[in-house]
């Protein structure tokens, strides 16, 4: 469904991604991990064209993301994205956050959009917060609203860019629970995260990145069993030591 073929990206002279080749198949949950600055967020943002890249090819459902002819807004409306800092629209109520895209992009009617929004708020356990503004919610609640906002668009795949790393520890699980449920329903997911528990529980594959390169790309069991590269071993021992 998402295919990276030798994707490379530079910020000026600095190469952030070099020759990244991997794929996420339909129904697969792929976790991307690695030390900070290794390019994992950049990689995931390339997938829906939020970050341009200079070399290589990236296909989403056969459509080339890097092609200037591609209708990016249309493509993006099919891919849900959840950000590290939630990025809810602070001037709009929770309900309006959930209906904006449905009405303006999918051209649903107000009633239809409201219904969908309510159903998804219910699903993330926040029905009672519909009329509040994002600033009145806790971090965990905001991130769940953000997931609901992405799901409102009926995406065929979901991208998560460190969805829990800006949260207080006690709120991490409420967000992970939603993500686990989503994974179990068969949603195609690409998740940048340090939550190894999540990776163990629901991922099919793990990608380990370091210095802009994909160092390891293997099944979950292989990765947690015996990662091949010393860099991944070191990373795992650090992150799992306590």
């Amino acid at each position: 469904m998402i295919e990276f073929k030798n994707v490379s990206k530079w910020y000026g002279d600095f190469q952030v991604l070099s020759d990244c080749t991997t794929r996420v198949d339909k129904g697969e949950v792929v976790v991307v991990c690695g030390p900070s600055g290794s390019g994992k967020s950049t990689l995931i943002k390339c997938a829906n064209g939020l970050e341009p890249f200079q070399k290589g090819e990236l296909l989403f459902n056969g459509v080339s993301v890097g092609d200037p002819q591609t209708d990016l807004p249309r493509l993006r409306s099919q891919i849900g994205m959840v950000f590290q800092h939630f990025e809810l629209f602070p001037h709009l109520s929770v309900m309006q956050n959930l209906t904006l895209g449905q009405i303006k992009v999918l051209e649903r009617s107000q009633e239809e959009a409201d219904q969908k929004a309510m159903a998804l708020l219910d699903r993330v356990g926040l029905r009672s917060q519909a009329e509040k503004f994002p600033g009145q919610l806790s971090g965990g609640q905001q991130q769940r609203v953000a997931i609901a906002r992405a799901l409102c668009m009926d995406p065929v795949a979901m991208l998560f860019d460190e969805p829990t790393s800006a949260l207080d520890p006690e709120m991490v699980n409420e967000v992970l629970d939603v993500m686990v449920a989503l994974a179990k329903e068969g949603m195609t997911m690409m998740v940048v995260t340090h939550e190894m528990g999540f990776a163990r529980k629901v991922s099919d594959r793990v990608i380990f990145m370091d210095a802009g390169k994909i160092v390891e790309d293997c099944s979950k069991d292989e990765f947690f069993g015996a990662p091949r590269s010393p860099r991944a071993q070191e990373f795992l021992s650090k992150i799992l030591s306590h």
Partner: protein
Amino acid sequence: MGYDFDFDVIQRSWVYLFRDGMTFTVTLTLLSMLGGVVLGTALALMRLSSHRVLNGFAGAYVNLMRSLPLVLVIFWFYFLVPYIGGWLSGSNQPMKVGAFASALITFTMFEAAFYCEIMRAGIQSIPKGQVSAGYAIGLKYRQTMSYIVLPQAFRNMLPVLLTQTIILFQDTSLVYVISSTNFLGAAAKVANRDHRLVEMYTFAALIYFIICFAASMYVRRLQARISIIR
């Protein structure tokens, strides 16, 4: 040596002062603000775009307007606008443009440069992630700007925009150079006619002070009320 104050002149002339003068001043201020904010926002978007030509044009425009004295621009446009109007409508004759229309065009274009800088700061104050989030749900550039970035930028900058408008309100008094009857102009006419210069100018100063002071108090209260909870 004493000066014989006669404040009756105000009573005799206040209908003229307010009905003719203040109406002109307030209408000019409000319309120029409206036009200036719209044009200024467009200029701000141009200045922030990566398009070299748009960016360069907006930058040059803003720098030009901000480097010229307002009185000069008022004068200049007063003489220039009829010719441009004539040229645009394809006739050889300069177009007849009244003092009000000329002043309105001048203030809109002049203030747009200042509103542009305010809106530019406002747009830049919105985190980049907000734009990404808009794009991520499939919004186009135009939609992302009009539903997400500009409403927030506008709200954040409303106090500054209004403060600039208070300055604009005072600046409209400069239309006296094209002898149009704004509030100060009306007061000056009465002052000269009745030889009551001190009284009339004191009265005009007092009115300007009351309006501007009340407006800035209002802006201060508004600031506390409208801020977006984050």
